[in-house]
């Protein structure tokens, strides 16, 4: 299980190169931080660019925390700022990518990841991130508990953003969201096309390189 999550995180981390500025959501997206190259800069919406891994025990500082209140470290050259500036970075187009989890993603690149029936959580910065970041990468397990589809023809839960997702990375495959629909670009080792099709609730266009 951790294996699966790590695999997804490693895959996503490989998309980034030094100089990129990336915001990571909670869950699998957070794990992406463990595998990125040196020089990929991480943005946390509570007001910091340039954070590093968790500090050694005893070295925690209440002045260096993430959006989930977790303790962070900072690389030399890190900059702190207020929440308006933080989202100026996001909305202003300065994020190379955001990596987020999803409850549902659909063929049009719609994303639902902040609200499910009967639970009151709030969208936090997710709606800003999906509208602002150049790439919106969904990093998630391919299906929900019980094998329920998460990649759908059309999202049923309240949306986070309309037509915002650019890429979906799961333990089974990599899917690119295009104007024509979802393009299956890559199968993970040992995964068959049939398995992906079965576990996907949306129409998939199989990339030429896979045919």
């Amino acid at each position, binding site marked *: 299980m951790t294996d699966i999550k790590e695999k997804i995180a490693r895959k996503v981390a490989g998309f980034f190169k030094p100089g990129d500025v990336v915001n990571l959501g909670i869950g699998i997206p957070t794990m992406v931080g463990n595998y990125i190259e040196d020089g990929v800069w991480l943005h946390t919406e*509570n007001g910091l660019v340039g954070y590093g891994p968790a500090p050694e025990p005893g070295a925690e500082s209440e002045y260096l925390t993430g959006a989930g209140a977790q303790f962070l470290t900072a690389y030399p050259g890190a900059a702190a700022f207020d*929440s308006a500036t933080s989202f100026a970075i996001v909305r202003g187009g300065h994020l190379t990518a955001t990596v987020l989890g999803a409850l549902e993603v659909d063929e049009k690149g719609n994303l639902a990841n902040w609200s499910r029936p009967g639970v*009151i*959580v709030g969208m936090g910065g997710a709606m800003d991130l999906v509208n602002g970041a150049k790439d919106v990468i969904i990093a998630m397990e391919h299906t929900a508990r019980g094998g329920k589809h998460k990649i759908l023809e059309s999202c049923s839960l309240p949306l986070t953003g309309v037509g915002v997702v650019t890429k979906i990375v799961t333990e089974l495959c990599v899917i690119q969201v295009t104007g024509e629909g979802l393009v299956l670009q890559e199968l993970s080792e040992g995964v068959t096309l049939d398995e992906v099709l079965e576990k996907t609730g949306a129409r998939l266009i199989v990339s030429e390189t896979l045919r």
Partner: protein
Amino acid sequence: MNKLVSKSEIMKLFHDNMTLMCGGFANRGNPGKLIDMVVESGAQNLSIISNDAGDPDLTIGRLIRSRQAKKLIASHVGMNPELGQAVLEGRMELELSPQGTLAERIRCGGTGMGGVLIKTGLGTVIEEGKQKIEVNGQSYLLELPLTAEIALVKAHKADALGNLVYKGTQRNFNPLVAMAGKTVIVEAEEIVPIGALDMDEIHTPGVFVSLVWNGEEE
């Protein structure tokens, strides 16, 4: 011009039915002792503007547990199931605003503007009840300013003029909230002499600030 006050002077300012705005983010950088004072004041029927609801036993979570808060405007309340429960039971009203939009709405209030046009939330529930405005063929939501009777701010350093410096990720919403309250009250970790802060390191100029408290009982 000396804005340093004692706890008792601040205590007088809290009353029923007021709107409070509060800095902090996920239990970090919150003016925790000022929130304690609001709890102690017993003021009822409060409307609160804050990024989040905190944990139930921390920061503004305490005002929800004490049932002093009747309304919350926030972006995220997932760390506080008691808030969710209160909303589901109809005891509290919750208005959700995307985090970046919330930040700009508070800044908008503080800067005396009438609103800002933002794309965030287009095509989602965030559209509900909002005016859509077209600019150069693109749609935006008209997001309205937020202000409060009292703004509660946590700062790392303050001088008696109200000049403030924040530290690291404790900054978050504090400088925005510090612009948008009719009365802006600061809980400072350290009071420094006037002139000790360089004019370039000051994050919030004192002109925005009403009162500064050193966080000590009396």
